């Protein structure tokens, strides 16, 4: 074909770059997973929209509910914010979890996932690694919400320890919940479908909960739903931790639920992953 000087130069540089690069030892399971976690965090840096889109909704709710209804609901906007903020924290982080499924599905549809699957690495790493990276995303999201709350006048009675414990609990629950979306991400055909379905599940769960108001004045059927809604339990425990009044039972329920979600959906995800074609 062409024998232009540029082709020859390219050829020479290429041969130098290609000559005998043997494969280093296979990376450990931890190293491979951490590399995928690093990738998830890089995406957060390059595509911050993925965070702001989801955080925007809880912020609007926080500001809207606090200033529109806060006085009427709790006597004063400040008193209402004390009640609302832990709920906003849960809502935000829970909504951010949907990206675990969306990003996985995007990797599958673009073919990036095939490249990962054709590498000699610890098999679960392309699934487990991003989820570990996603906990970094949850940390950023929860820090943003708490900072917003503090700026608006939220004062947690549980102090720094209470806030950190509350954030840790929410992040732990989010990790368990992420497995649901990775399973979905392996089954559904497009990233949009994953996004729509996960939001379709999460919106009713977050709205019909104790995030915005105390359910004692609601009709019985709704109260019955709210009482079994897992989000309600997470909010109650988080509220307790932030206020320094949490009981072992409240926190234990959330830890058990997170463990149960992981115990069911992590093996299901891995099963679906291995069975792809």
């Amino acid at each position: 074909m062409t024998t232009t000087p540029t082709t020859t130069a390219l050829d020479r540089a290429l041969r130098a770059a290609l000559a005998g690069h043997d494969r280093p030892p296979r990376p450990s399971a931890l190293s491979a997973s951490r590399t995928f976690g690093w990738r998830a965090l890089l995406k957060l840096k390059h595509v911050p929209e993925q965070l702001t889109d989801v955080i925007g909704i809880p912020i609007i709710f926080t500001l809207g509910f606090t200033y529109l209804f806060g006085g009427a609901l709790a006597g004063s906007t400040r008193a209402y914010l004390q009640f609302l903020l832990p709920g906003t924290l849960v809502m935000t982080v829970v909504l951010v979890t949907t990206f675990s499924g969306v990003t996985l599905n995007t990797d599958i549809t673009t073919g990036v996932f095939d490249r990962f699957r054709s590498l000699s690495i610890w098999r679960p790493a392309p699934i487990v690694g991003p989820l570990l990276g996603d906990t970094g995303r949850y940390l950023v999201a929860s820090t943003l919400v708490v900072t917003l709350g503090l700026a608006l006048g939220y004062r947690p009675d549980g102090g720094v320890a209470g806030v950190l414990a509350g954030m840790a609990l929410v992040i732990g629950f989010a990790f368990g919940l992420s497995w649901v979306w990775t399973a979905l991400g392996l089954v559904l055909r497009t990233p949009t479908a994953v996004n729509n379905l996960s939001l379709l599940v999460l919106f009713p769960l977050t709205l019909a909960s104790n995030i915005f108001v105390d359910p004692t004045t609601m009709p019985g059927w709704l109260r019955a739903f709210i009482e079994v809604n897992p989000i309600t339990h997470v909010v109650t425990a988080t509220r307790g931790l932030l206020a320094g009044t949490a009981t072992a039972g409240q926190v234990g329920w959330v830890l058990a639920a997170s463990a149960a979600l992981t115990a069911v959906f992590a093996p299901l995800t891995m099963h679906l992953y291995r069975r792809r074609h």
Partner: protein
Amino acid sequence: MTAQPTLAVETSGLVKTFGTTRAVDGVDLRVPAGSVYGLLGPNGAGKTTIIRILTTLLRPDTGTARVFGDDVVAEADAVRGRIALTGQYAAVDLDLTGRENLVLLARLLGYPRRPARTRVEELLDAFDLAEAADRLVKTYSGGMRRRLDITASLIVTPQLLVLDEPTTGLDPHNRNQVWDIVRALVADGTTVLLTTQYLEEADQLADRIAVMDRGRVIAEGSPGQLKASVGAGALRLRLPDPTQRADARRLLAQALGVPVHPASDPAALSARVTDSRRVLGALAELAGAGIAVADFALAQPSLDEVFLALTGRPTGIDDTTKEDAA
């Protein structure tokens, strides 16, 4: 069985069905180590399915496939340690920079942090990607994405490089670059298995070609053998004066020794040429008879013509569709 394998790829009786479609229907391939092997066929012929089985992404229903002696199902991880795959669509992360994409893969291949960076710098320079290295890949042109994609497959020198339609959708400049890369690799001892829809590409690169149709290999051999079975190519020519077409047709048929067909264009003629050496003489006879020629072309047989010759029917698939049914 444990002797040093001289075959990079060996499949026998490979079958894969999707629903009622037999995407791969009993394929036996033998790819010698150190060669370039082309899988040639239209969309839906089963090329990509074979690639996916060989790269451990898909399990065959029946039959076996070995890569340098390792079974793709039972010894999948060993196979993964020998291969690199560049799929049909640039499988790079659009949300990361070019450099980050390569560092990510270098780390996953086992390079420690600093050596990964050093190796990636070297590759960015060699593949002419240094300038764009810190831009997000979503801003890259199609040719640059393809180059990054191939670079990602060459961080370590694979024993077998698998390229699925490496130049589909590329302009001639970028296509030549990909071809240069393949040639440089082969000179270095890597075996290359590629799929293509273009006879020209297979002819340029491959030592052996398997022509595929509906999940089966319908012809196998060197490009020379394959082309000999099809004819050297197609001669097409146009006359400035359409009234001379009948005379021109008669003269050409005599000189070429093959039937010459009038085209729908009233000034054009075409012929399937078996011996390209006779074309010059035929054109000289036209000139001698005072028949001017406006333009002429002797083209390689297209995939369609190969198909027609081998199967008696055209590929029946629009050239512009780029998808290969799984």
